[in-house]
C-alpha cells in the first residue's frame, strides 16, 4: 500500500461542492480521507507543502487519441497517460480510432491493461459506435461496456447515417451510455483542409464551411430529442453550433458538448504560411466563433473542455498542407491555455474552469473523481495558476511534438498529480 499523503496549506477548490479556501487534504488508501484545517496525518505520511498552490480534483479529459494499438510510433497508452499526468489530468478517455479500432472486448481490455501497466493517469477506453468505424453496423455496446468502455464514439469520422445514429442513441439507453459524435457533414467538408473563409481563399486551400458542422449538430440534437438518448457533441468549433446547443439545452434535451483549448484560443489566421500545426478537424474558425465558444463555456452551453489530444509524427506534419494530418497535442498545454485565455482575461473564474475540466467531465461520462468529497478517489492535482512558463515541445512527455503553441508564454501549470493516492507526476522531479 502506498504511503498516505498530506497536502498542506493549499487553496483547496472543490468545484463539485463549490468550496474554495485554504485547507489541508489528506489522502489514504487511495481515497480522500479528510479535508479540513490543521490535519495531522499519521506518522510517516508524505507531506506536501501546497502553500500558494491550488489543490483540486484531478483534471479529466473526455477526448484524447492515444494511438495504441496500431500507431505506437506516435503515442502509446503509457506515454499518453504520462503526458496527461504532467498536464494535471488524472483521467483521460481514449478514442477508439486505433488500428484495429476499439470495437471488441479484446481491444478494450488491451487498452485498460496497458494503462494499468503504465500506472499514470487513468485511461478509460471509448468503444466504437459501428463495427470497424465503418458507419454500417452497430458495435456490441453491451460487450464493450462490460469490458470497461465508458462511452461509444466513431470519432475521427462522423456517423453519417441518421438511421445508425438513431439506433445507437436508442440502444445506448439500455446501458445509460453516452454516444459521442464527431460532427461533420462529409459531402460539404470533403477535401477541405481548413475553415472556409478569407484565409482559405487567399491561400488557395479548400475550405470546410461552418455549416458542415452545424448541419450535423442539428441532426444529432433532433435525434436526441427523438430517442431521448444522450448525445455528446465532440470538439465544437462554431458560433452556430453553440446556438443550436443552447436551444437544445433550453428544451431540456440530453445534449452535452465539449470544446478544445485550440478552438477557444486560435483562429484560421494560424494557418497563414501553411502552418500544418494549425491544421485540424474541425478547423480553426473565425474570431466571432472563438468569442461565441468562450461565451458558451461561460454560460454552460458547452459543458467541458476536452483536448482532442492528437499526436502525429513530426515528419507527417512536415509536408504540403493538403497532405498533412489533422490534429495537435493537447494534454500538456490545456490547463495553461485555459488559464491564460479564459481565467486571466476574466472570462471564467478559476473554480468555474476547474468545474469544466474536472467535475463536469466526470458527470458527463459518469466517471469517478471530479470531487474532493471524503471517500472519493484520491485523484488530485496540485496546480500553480500563477506559474508563467514557455511551451517547449521538446520537453513534452508525449511521443509527438505537433503543437502550434511552441514558444508561447502561458500562465498556469500542474505541479503535482496524484492518481489513486499515488504521485504520478511531480514537477520538482521533472
Amino acid at each position, binding site marked *: 500500500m502506498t504511503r498516505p499523503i498530506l497536502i498542506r496549506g493549499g487553496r483547496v477548490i472543490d468545484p463539485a461542492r463549490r468550496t474554495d479556501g485554504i485547507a489541508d487534504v489528506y489522502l489514504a488508501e487511495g481515497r480522500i480521507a479528510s479535508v479540513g484545517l490543521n490535519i495531522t496525518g499519521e506518522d510517516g505520511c508524505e507531506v506536501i507543502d501546497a502553500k500558494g498552490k491550488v489543490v483540486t480534483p484531478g483534471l479529466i479529459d473526455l477526448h484524447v487519441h492515444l494511438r495504441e494499438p496500431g500507431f505506437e510510433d506516435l503515442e502509446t497508452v503509457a506515454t499518453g497517460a504520462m503526458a496527461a499526468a504532467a498536464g494535471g489530468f488524472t483521467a483521460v478517455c481514449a478514442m477508439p480510432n486505433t488500428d484495429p479500432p476499439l470495437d471488441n472486448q479484446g481491444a478494450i481490455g488491451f487498452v485498460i491493461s496497458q494503462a494499468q501497466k503504465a500506472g499514470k493517469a487513468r485511461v478509460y477506453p471509448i468503444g466504437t459506435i459501428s463495427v470497424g468505424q465503418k458507419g454500417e453496423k452497430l458495435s456490441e455496446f453491451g460487450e464493450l461496456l462490460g469490458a470497461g468502455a465508458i462511452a461509444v464514439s466513431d470519432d475521427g469520422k462522423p456517423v453519417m447515417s441518421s438511421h445508425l445514429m438513431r439506433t445507437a442513441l436508442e440502444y445506448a439507453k439500455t446501458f445509460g451510455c453516452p454516444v459521442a459524435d464527431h460532427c461533420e457533414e462529409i459531402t460539404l467538408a470533403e477535401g477541405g483542409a481548413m475553415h472556409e*473563409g478569407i484565409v482559405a*481563399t*487567399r*491561400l488557395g486551400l479548400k475550405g470546410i464551411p461552418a455549416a458542415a458542422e452545424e448541419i450535423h449538430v442539428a441532426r444529432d440534437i433532433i435525434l436526441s430529442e427523438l430517442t431521448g438518448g444522450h448525445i455528446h457533441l465532440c470538439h465544437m468549433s462554431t458560433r452556430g453550433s453553440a446556438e443550436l446547443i443552447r436551444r437544445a439545452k433550453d428544451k431540456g434535451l440530453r445534449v452535452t458538448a465539449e470544446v478544445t483549448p485550440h478552438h477557444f484560443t486560435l483562429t484560421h489566421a494560424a494557418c497563414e504560411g*501553411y502552418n500544418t500545426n494549425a491544421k485540424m478537424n474541425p478547423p480553426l474558425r473565425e474570431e466571432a466563433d472563438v468569442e461565441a465558444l468562450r461565451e458558451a463555456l461561460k454560460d454552460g452551453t458547452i459543458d467541458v473542455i476536452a483536448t482532442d489530444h492528437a499526436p502525429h509524427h513530426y515528419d507527417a506534419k512536415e*509536408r*504540403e498542407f493538403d497532405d498533412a494530418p489533422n490534429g495537435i497535442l493537447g494534454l500538456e498545454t490545456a490547463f495553461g491555455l485555459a488559464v491564460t485565455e479564459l481565467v486571466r482575461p476574466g472570462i471564467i473564474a478559476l473554480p468555474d474552469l476547474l468545474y469544466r475540466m474536472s467535475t463536469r467531465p466526470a458527470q458527463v461520462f459518469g466517471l469517478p473523481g471530479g470531487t474532493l468529497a471524503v471517500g472519493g478517489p484520491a485523484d488530485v492535482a496540485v496546480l500553480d495558476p500563477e506559474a508563467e512558463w514557455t511551451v517547449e515541445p521538446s520537453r513534452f512527455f508525449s511521443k509527438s511534438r505537433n503543437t502550434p503553441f511552441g514558444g508561447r508564454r502561458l500562465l498556469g501549470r500542474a505541479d503535482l498529480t496524484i492518481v489513486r493516492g499515488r504521485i504520478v507526476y511531480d514537477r520538482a522531479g521533472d
Partner: protein
Amino acid sequence: MGAAALGKDLIGLETLSPQQLRLILDTAERFKEVSERPIKKVPALRGKTIVNLFFEASTRTRISFEFAEKRLSADTVNVASSGSSVSKGETLVDTARNLEAMRIDMVVIRHQASGSAEFLGRRIRSNVVNAGDGKHEHPTQGLLDLLTLRDRFGKIEGLKVAICGDVLHSRVARSNIWGLKKLGAEVAVCGPASLLPRDIAALGVEVIPRIDEAIRWADALNVLRLQLERMTGGFIPSLREYNRVFGVTRERLDRAGKDIVIMHPGPMNRGVEIDSDVADGPHSVILPQVTNGVAVRMAVLYLLAGGNPDWQQHGGGE
C-alpha cells in the same frame, strides 16, 4: 537592388510591392528583344543551374520557363512527375533536401498542393520560383498578364479588368487580383457563385454575377480556363450550359459593341469558356501573352539570381 530586389523566392504576387512589380515588368521589357534576335541567347545566367520540378502536367509554362532559362544561358534539368511526390514515396521535403545536396542555384516548381512552393522555399537555400501551386498563385502568369495589358493600354492604373470563370480553383485569378490591385487597376470577378471563393470581395474585388455585365464594365477580360479536371465536384450543370450562360462569345462582344481586350491563360476549352472566333479574333491578345511569358520569366530568373535591374545598359551588349 540586385539580390535584394525581389528577395530569395518568387512565391506569389501577394507579397510583392508595386515597385517590385514594376521592376519585373521593366526588366521583362528589356528582355523581350533577346527573343527577337537571330541568336536568342545572353550570358546573364551562365554557370547557374536550374531544376524545373514539375509535379503536375504542364506544357506551356514548362516550355516557357525552359526557353527563358536557355536564353539566359543557364544549365537546366527537367524533372517531371505525373503523380505526386507522395505517390512516388518521397516527400517534398526529401526531394528538396536532395536538390539542395546537388548544389543547384534555382528551382522552378509546379505542384498540385497550395503552399508547396513556399514550403520548398523555406527549406532550401536555392531560389525558388513558383510555377503554379495548387489553387494559390501562379505569379509569372500574373506578371505576363500585367505586361500584356501594359503593352496594350500603356498603363495598368485605372484599367477595369474582369476575371471570368472558375475563380474558385484558379491560381491565375489570385495572382491577377494581387498584381492588378497593386498597380492600381479596378478588378472584378465574374462567374457562377458556385465557382467563386468565399469572401472573395474582401480581397477588394467587385463581384459581377453575369458575363454580359462584366463585358459592359471591363476594358479587358481575363477568361479563365474551366478546369475540367476539377469539375468532378459538380459545380456547374454542364459544359453546354456553362457556355450558354458564361461563355465569352462573339454575339456577346458584338452586343456590347465596344473595344475590349480578351486574355486567356490557356490551355483553352474552345466552345466552353471562350468561343473560337473570340479566341482567334481581333480582341484577343492570347498569343502576345505567350510571347510575353518568356520575357517575364527571364526577368524573374535574372532578378532572383541577383542580376542588375539595369541589365541592358550594363550587360546587354555581351
